[in-house]
């Protein structure tokens, strides 16, 4: 593992904590129906987005999915505009047109996310093609669930990225489930890395959600990509604590063993990384995060709904 300067550790903790707390707050408000749209929570999976983004430069480009709160925040997206978007307000990152599933913040190179599984892989590859054609230094990172590895377009995308040696880091967030379907019921052996390697793409699998291990693997992969070696693939084992969609716990659906969930909850990265900081630092960060979260929801509350005249805006770009 690389040496971690203290500052970076506290940044990492802050990001983990921000995501956790903002989603806990979403759970709290969800029953009020202020968020009139599906939310796919990242609670339990924060370390993937945070670990990977800790290895990126600001000019790097991120593509993600409908389960996008964690990535949006880890990449530097504006929390106020995220909550306003969930509330369907004009100050949302897409003026209410997008909702939780389609967050975007171009000012930090957070590309808009898609609710169709696996669609962002080829987009990421295309963006990487452009970067390489223009000889830019930035790289593209593409996050997707292991479910995306069921879709044919994922293989077409890996193939083209490898063929053209494009600067793209594939990040497979393997939480083992696609909705209520276990990966073993969808892949004859649950090994996305083996598949990526058969396309000549180097891979690394990080087993238990360790934020710093994810950061280090990402840093290594990013360095290779920046050196012109072409795409890399990392698989991050992780776990979703809540239901596939919505704010609830989902033990009642009995599609996964309680013990499996419990073990991952005990393996909480937010707590684990927090414990690496001294108490004072952690408490300061926690307090700052609370303030930020409270402010974001207040901001969203205060923002207006879009007027009817916005319905047909942006169908086309001028």
């Amino acid at each position, binding site marked *: 593992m690389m040496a971690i300067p203290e500052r970076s550790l506290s940044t990492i903790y802050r990001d983990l904590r921000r995501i956790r707390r903002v989603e806990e707050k979403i759970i709290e408000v969800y029953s009020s129906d202020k968020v009139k749209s599906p939310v796919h929570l990242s609670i339990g999976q924060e370390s993937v987005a945070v670990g990977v983004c800790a290895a990126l430069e600001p000019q790097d480009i991120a593509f993600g999915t409908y389960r996008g709160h964690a990535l949006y925040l880890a990449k530097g997206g504006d929390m106020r505009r995220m909550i306003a978007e969930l509330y369907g307000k004009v100050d949302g990152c897409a003026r209410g047109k997008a909702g939780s599933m389609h967050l975007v913040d171009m000012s930090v190179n957070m590309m808009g996310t898609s609710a169709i599984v696996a669609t962002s892989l080829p987009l990421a590859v295309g963006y990487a093609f452009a970067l390489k054609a223009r000889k830019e230094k930035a790289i593209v990172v593409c996050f997707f669930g292991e479910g995306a590895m069921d879709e044919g377009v994922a293989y077409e995308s890996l193939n083209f990225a490898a063929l053209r040696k494009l600067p793209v880091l594939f990040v497979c967030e393997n939480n083992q489930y696609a909705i209520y379907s276990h990966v073993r019921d969808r892949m004859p052996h649950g090994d996305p890395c083996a598949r990526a390697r058969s396309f000549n793409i180097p891979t690394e699998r990080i087993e238990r959600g360790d934020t710093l291990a994810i950061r280090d693997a990402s840093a290594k992969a990013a360095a290779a990509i920046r050196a012109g070696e072409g795409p890399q693939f990392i698989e991050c084992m992780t776990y979703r604590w809540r239901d596939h969609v919505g704010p609830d716990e989902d033990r009642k*659906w009995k599609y996964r063993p309680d013990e499996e969930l419990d073990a991952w909850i005990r393996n909480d990265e937010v707590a684990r990384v927090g414990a690496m900081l001294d108490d004072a630092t952690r408490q300061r960060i926690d307090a700052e995060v609370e303030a930020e979260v409270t402010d974001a929801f207040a901001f969203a509350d205060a923002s207006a709904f879009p007027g009817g005249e916005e319905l047909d805006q942006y169908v086309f770009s001028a």
Partner: protein
Amino acid sequence: MSSAPKSDRSLTYAEALYEGTRQEMERDPGVFVFGLGVDDARGMYGTTLDLQNVFGADRNFDTPLSEDAMTGVAIGAALAGMRPIHVHQRMDFLLLCMNQLVNMAAKSSYMFAGAVNVPIVVRAIIGRSWGQGAQHSQAFHSYFMHVPGLKVVAPSTPHDAKGCMIAAIRDNNPVIFMEHRMLYQNRGIVPEEPFAVTFGQARRLTEGDDVTIVAVSHMVVEALRAKHLLDEVGIKAEVIDPVTLAPLDMDTIAESVGRTGRVLVVDNSWTMCGASSEIVAQLVERLQGSRSFRTARLGYAPTPCPTTKPLENLFYPTAMSIAQTAYELVKGKGDWTPAAVEAKEIAEFRGPF
């Protein structure tokens, strides 16, 4: 096969789909139901709940997220003589398997001069409400109507849901079976014994001589609400549910418009090159020279579907916009504003999805 609805037992739309499917699975061991999540604890809004317990995991099973190949698998199994029912949680996902549906399923009987047939049922659920946004709210029936070799059904009542399901399973051709999330809780009389709805027969749901309203899928519910609003101002609307879109029963529609001289077509998708264009065009072709008529169309606003509620409310036709448009067809631009009626199934819907 058809039987009159002599019972007065009521079922929800979802229950009716379940019952029709189950009865056919009992009758024919070649029928099986597969697709993402069809065997999970929520059972596709209840429409597939417990099929796996009853019929085993070979006849009701979850799949990888591979819409394209899974559609090919359905076609291949159908070529081998089985009768697959492939379920999609959102109709939007059919965009991933257009190639298999249009280039393969629709063409096989013809290309091979009847040497094979492709008896598949593709269930596609239209998403709506609770902020589905641009990628989870679309309906693509016009895509399938466009292509010879496919049948398209869009039942709006529990009775027709069951009868169309049974007919679709028994049909020797590919049938796109459109459902709408906002219909699942609707209740209606459904005979218990198996029966098949005849494809290509529209239903006149109400009688009226002032204006014909043809509505598709969930829009039938809104059109019926609109009819009540119109009653209040003395306008008698004849609401027609085509039930099946391919084949399309233009006889019934044209007869009605021949009488009323006015038609409003309300689609559950965009109007451009949609079912509403086709219905209007065919009406012109049939009635020209014999009967002039006035027409209007309603459908999705010509934008992607926005997520935020205030804009989403403007995106869809409503009982009010239907009533208002029908009113204007009859009376010309007027100053009537229909009372607000609530679409319960929409207002009361809570996510999380």
